[in-house]
């Protein structure tokens, strides 16, 4: 296991810039990923996530920036960086024309494992990724989920200490996505550092220790999921009424609320703390208001994401699909 200290950074980037012609894709980005953690780069399509991965994984060169991966300088010694990393990109990096097992042996061969060691590693990984039955079939017959698993299995042949996953679950069905999350957690528990890009907020929330929101080539915010959620005042208590008359009188009595006449519901700003909830309840009691349903809405990453990436600002949007306080579950460590 690799010890996690503030001084051991698996990935450190300062002033990373990249432009294509006069279009700036990445504008002075700083990143610091401690060893053994999951770092998620979150952003809408076209924000520059993939460009960051391509640069940090030595695929393309940056225009400027002091970049270190695995302790090696990207510009000076890309080959040492390559020896430390594994990359699973957005597009399946597998050989479609040969079988799953042949793909694994190809990787073993390129990593210069001996024949017996290569066979053993391939067999172990195929087993671990539930690909034993399909091992002798051409990859062209694999499902999307199987291809992703094979892709990641191939990445692991070289036992990389730092793994880049560029949208690893895009296009997967929910079950395959959960599977992939389990695999990622397992990797991290083995001491591997994971740099993950995703457009799924839930995924970042589930897996990442730290999240950076990338928008328009800049880091709009950075922190743990909870820190990010605290950045925006999205919390509120929602009161729903069945009777239009009760709704009307409550709306008149409470005044400082956001009304949603369609849904017969009122929203009161609140950070969701016990103290505030009690004062709201006291207030409702003293005003003689009896709501049919009371729910507490804590801002989730969706709110943060939309607020930070210039989408519609959502804090007061009716939280129709947020029936209860939605506390993020942390990734299993």
């Amino acid at each position, binding site marked *: 296991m690799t010890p996690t200290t503030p001084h051991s950074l698996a990935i450190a980037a300062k002033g990373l810039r990249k432009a294509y012609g006069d279009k700036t894709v990445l504008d002075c980005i700083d990143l610091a990923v401690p060893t053994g953690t999951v770092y998620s780069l979150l952003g809408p399509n076209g924000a520059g996530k993939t460009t960051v991965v391509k640069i940090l994984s030595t695929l393309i060169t940056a225009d400027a920036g002091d970049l270190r991966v695995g302790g090696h300088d990207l510009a000076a010694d890309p080959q040492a960086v*390559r020896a430390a990393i594994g990359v699973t*990109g957005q597009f399946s*990096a*597998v050989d479609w*024309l*040969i079988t799953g097992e042949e793909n694994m042996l190809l990787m073993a061969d390129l990593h210069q494992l001996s024949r017996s060691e290569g066979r053993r590693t391939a067999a172990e990984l195929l087993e671990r990724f539930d690909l034993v039955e399909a091992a002798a079939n051409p990859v062209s017959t694999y499902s999307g989920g199987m291809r992703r698993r094979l892709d990641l299995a*191939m990445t692991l042949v070289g036992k990389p200490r730092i793994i880049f996953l560029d949208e690893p679950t895009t296009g997967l069905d929910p079950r395959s996505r959960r599977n992939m999350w389990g695999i990622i957690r397992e990797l991290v528990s083995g001491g591997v550092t994971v740099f993950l890009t995703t457009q799924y907020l839930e995924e970042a929330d589930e897996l990442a220790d730290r999240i950076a929101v990338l928008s328009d080539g800049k880091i709009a915010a950075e922190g743990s999921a909870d820190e990010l959620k605290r950045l925006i005042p999205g919390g509120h208590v929602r009161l729903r009424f069945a009777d239009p008359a009760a709704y009307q009188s409550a709306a008149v009595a409470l005044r400082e609320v956001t009304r949603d006449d369609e849904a017969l519901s009122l929203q009161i700003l609140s950070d969701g703390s016990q103290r505030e909830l009690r004062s709201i309840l006291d207030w409702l009691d003293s005003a003689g208001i009896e709501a049919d349903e009371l729910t507490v809405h804590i801002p989730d990453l969706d709110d943060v994401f939309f607020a930070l990436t210039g989408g519609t600002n959502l804090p007061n949007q009716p939280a129709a699909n947020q029936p209860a306080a939605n506390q993020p579950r942390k990734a299993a460590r």
Partner: protein
Amino acid sequence: MSALSLAVRNSNTMLRRNLLHARRYPSMTLNLLLTPIMMLLLFVYIFGDVMSAGIGGGGADRSDYIAYVVPGILMMTIGSTVIGAAISVSMDMNEGLIARFRTMALYRGSLLIGHVVGSVLQVLASQLLVGAVAVAIGFRSTDATVLEWLAAFGLLALFSLALTWIAVGMGMASPNPEAASNMAMPLILLPLISSAFIPADTMPGWFQPIAEYQPFTPAIETLRGLLLGTEIGNNWWIAIVWCVGLTALGYRWATGLFNRDPK
């Protein structure tokens, strides 16, 4: 592990991958082989009577024409088979797998070397098949010495290497495999305007310099001389200059494109 043994080991792995593809999917190589074989049969059995009248100052018969055309067909086989290299390089460059190779600590040239060596081996195997058909329809080369055979083999290998590097460059420069196939078409069309089927001096005067000095004609004339004892003249060194030049050009072109930042 030293840099050289890394290069050898990685290139060898890439070569085996290439040959595995060829073994799994032989249809492309076989399709490309059809063209020279069809040309051979077409020119000998369909056009043969007219064609044989055009060589050796008249009075030649079909077996003379078979002897004349086979060296040209062997060279044409090279031009046709290397199209496969252009296509498979382009296929690789359009797959996610190339990004994986680029982010691994490999010898950088290994992928292209694997393609080139694999393609040359496939060309040589194709030569054997085409040669077998030629012998079956009556081609004989009884006068050639062992040394001449070796030289002929060396020339075929050298010409294969040169055209393969050009084809690999074409594959690198193409946005997709279809475009690569189109771009490589001249490699199979050039033999038609060489001395492969008719002597260059029977062509229109203004066209003769083009036919005589394009890469195929000197190579074909040299091969003819080695196998059948015809006059080689200065063709042998022009052929070698072409081979070396095309190899250098294709190598610079392909590796230059490969070393650029991918999109």
